[in-house]
């Protein structure tokens, strides 16, 4: 339950922020209220359902005026908001695991129709076995389709990113959907102290959604999504590709404005760098996996080991140049995937192979070690962190990458 705390935490700067003890899902709902969304659809599945509950409560308490439609399944859930967005509504939707996969047809049509939907994916292992814990394969399944994908690691980042997401997705240069990934349980169900900005600041940051020439309205008579043959399809894909390319600039602009207006937020939108300045070994992983890794890194730094962390936020668009530049000084890179890609090159997870591909033309290609860890919500322990780091230092010394992907935290 959301409880407003009385005393502002020490060290917070933005004095007119409200401080609340809320979960990542509730932080998302706070942002949705501030963004004054118009239409939200819901269909329960853990861990996403915490968001839908939080929004329902906002509406019931009169804090948010929005159409709240409970669909009969995820397929309809995503279709309804797609159409609502087409007629000019600011929309929100979300799901988890196999629920997200059930909406797949609707997820594929959203980017070509240039619908700036914001969705929250409460990352959850795909069935079978039916399980609730976190894996990133659900959100990653749309990585090639024109969805912008971002992973967050705190409730505060969830709130800020939700506001950023509307600003970026609804920019006319982009008009693409964004899925914000939050690790099930660790983020969706855990309450932490979050600074909630004022509506006045949000209004300054986030202009109303203007669908412009693509608005489906009697005053702008258009047909959306006609059938097309081979004479049109590649041009439509090319437009989509261009919109994704334009998103690089739009994301940079949005984060700069966010920092100016809210007085917080990262300089580098694309990934968080933690103790990487002089690091010989750089570890990488998305989402809340950063938390045990940061603890482990601090412990190892205390022992004089030069190790740091890069936590990618944006996976699509992928910050290729910037990431490659950040990885150039490393003597070894360790990528920890909370996902799998069976039969992939080296049996690696999705993130590790993306980094390999990005590094292919780099001037320096330090040894890259890939790990699969924490599947199904299995806790990532400090022992896992130390093991990864030790293997990376060995590779840094030998200059050679062990190509085989290693699974950590498996009973064997």
């Amino acid at each position, binding site marked *: 339950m959301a409880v407003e705390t009385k005393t502002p935490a020490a060290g917070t700067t933005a004095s007119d922020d409200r401080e609340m003890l809320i979960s990542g899902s509730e932080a998302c709902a706070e942002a949705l209220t501030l963004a004054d969304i118009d239409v939200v659809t819901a269909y329960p599945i853990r861990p996403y359902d915490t968001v839908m509950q939080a929004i329902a409560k906002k509406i019931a308490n009169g804090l948010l005026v929005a159409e709240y439609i409970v669909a009969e399944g995820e397929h309809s859930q995503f279709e309804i908001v797609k159409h609502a967005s087409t007629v000019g509504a600011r929309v929100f939707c979300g799901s988890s695991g196999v629920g997200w996969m059930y909406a797949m047809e609707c997820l594929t049509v959203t980017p*070509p*129709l*240039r*619908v700036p939907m914001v969705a929250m994916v409460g990352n959850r292992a795909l069935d079978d076995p039916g399980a609730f814990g976190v894996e990133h394969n659900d959100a990653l399944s749309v990585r090639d389709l024109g969805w912008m994908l971002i992973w967050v690691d705190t409730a505060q980042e969830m709130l800020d990113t939700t506001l950023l997401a509307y600003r970026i997705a609804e920019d006319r240069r982009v*008009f693409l959907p964004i899925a914000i990934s939050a690790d099930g349980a660790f983020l969706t169900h855990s309450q932490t102290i979050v600074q909630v900005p004022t509506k006045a600041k949000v209004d300054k940051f986030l202009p109303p959604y203007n669908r412009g*020439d*693509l608005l489906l309205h009697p005053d702008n*008579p*258009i*047909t*959306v*999504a*006609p059938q*097309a*043959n*081979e*004479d*049109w399809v*590649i*041009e*439509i894909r*090319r*437009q989509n590709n*261009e*919109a994704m390319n334009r998103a690089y600039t739009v994301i940079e602009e949005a984060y700069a404005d966010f920092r100016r207006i809210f007085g917080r937020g990262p300089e580098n939108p694309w990934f968080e760098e933690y103790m990487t300045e002089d690091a010989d070994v750089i570890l990488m992983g998305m989402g809340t996996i950063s938390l045990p890794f940061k603890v482990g890194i601090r412990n190892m730094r205390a022992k004089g080991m030069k190790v740091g962390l890069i936590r990618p936020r944006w996976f699509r668009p992928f910050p290729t140049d910037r990431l490659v530049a950040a990885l150039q000084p490393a003597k070894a890179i360790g990528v920890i995937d909370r996902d799998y890609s069976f039969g992939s090159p080296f049996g690696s997870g999705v993130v590790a192979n993306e980094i390999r591909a990005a590094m292919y033309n780099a001037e320096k290609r330090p040894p890259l070690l890939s790990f699969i860890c924490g599947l199904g919500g299995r806790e990532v322990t400090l022992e896992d962190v130390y093991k990864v780091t030790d293997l990376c230092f060995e590779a840094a010394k030998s200059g050679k990458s062990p190509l085989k992907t290693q699974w950590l935290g498996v009973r064997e």
Partner: protein
Amino acid sequence: MAHFTCEVVYRGIFQKNLAARICRGIVLSSRKAGRWGIAFGRYGDSPQRNGIPAKDFAIVADTQEELEQNMARYEPKEVDVTICVDDTLSKGVESWAWYGLQPINQLIVPNGTLLMTSLQGPAELLKDIHRKETPYSLALIPAKASFSGLWVYKEDHTEARALGALAKLQPGFLSLDAVCAAIREAEWGSELKAASARKAHDRLETLAVKITEGNRETPFSFEKPKWWEMREGVTIPAIPVGKPMEGGKGYVPERNPYFKKFTTRTMRPVIDFDKCVKCTLCWIQCPDSCFDVTPDGLYDADMESCCGCGVCEAVCPAKECVTMVREDAFEDNASQWEMWRKDKPQYTAWLGNKIKSKEHVVRSHGFRFRGQYEQEIKLEMDQGGIEITAGIPGENAAGKQR
């Protein structure tokens, strides 16, 4: 090394199986001499609609390697022979698959051949067939268009005759013996069909067409936009609302400027405006919004957007007001109402001429009542037709029932 490319232009649904059989026959006949081939329908034509111009292709080559150069594409850039199995397509074709009006002879290589089934003579046909920048030959198989629906096949030997004629045009690729052998082996083949192929081969007449000959009209066309010129979000502008016809009266709907539909037509409505009771039914029921409301409250079918479905005739309650007439009786898409307004006695004469001719008003496709097919068969037999149902199912088909 040599290869031969052929297209069959046909009416969607009504001639779907006919076109497929011709193309399969070309490949199977060429195979008799060890050649390799491919037969395929233009993918963009699918799903077909009644009467919409569509294409099938057959390509045969001396070697598999040469054939590969012509595979994995929807439509060849040029063809040695265009086979047109309905002469109303000589006015040009506009399908799902391309944009603008494509003259029937557009893809034919210099000195290639246009092979048509038609009861019209070359002079009549060349009033419709567009002029071409290079000379070609026009070869005619005397026959009316072989129409049937998707579920039935008219066993009138058109496919055998087309293959026999092709053996005359391209003996290097398909010998007459090979064609006959392939026909015999086909599922619905028979000796009678092989005989039809031989007759068509022996009787085929071709005529050289000069670059000065043909319809001088410039076919409707447009440029496809660049990716950055296209609207985003898979959106297209809707058709705007229409305008009054003249003096603030009447109503002309706006229509899709990029897809005109009229080449789908094998019959068109001819309207006797003096019999119109202004009931509005044709205007309301037309699935293509092709009626203009005239200032005097009549309904004039716009011939660029009419696809000849016949709904107007079916719903019209006035006797002999709307009559469907075969498309080959017309040379242009001029407004009937304008003609009527200008000179009523002359229009009445023109109208009578069109609807009185039995040849013109015989339904070209589909049947209007149960038993019409049997009636037509009887009519044709009475006129000296040959009983061919003995070949249905053909000898080979009987064998396949085992």
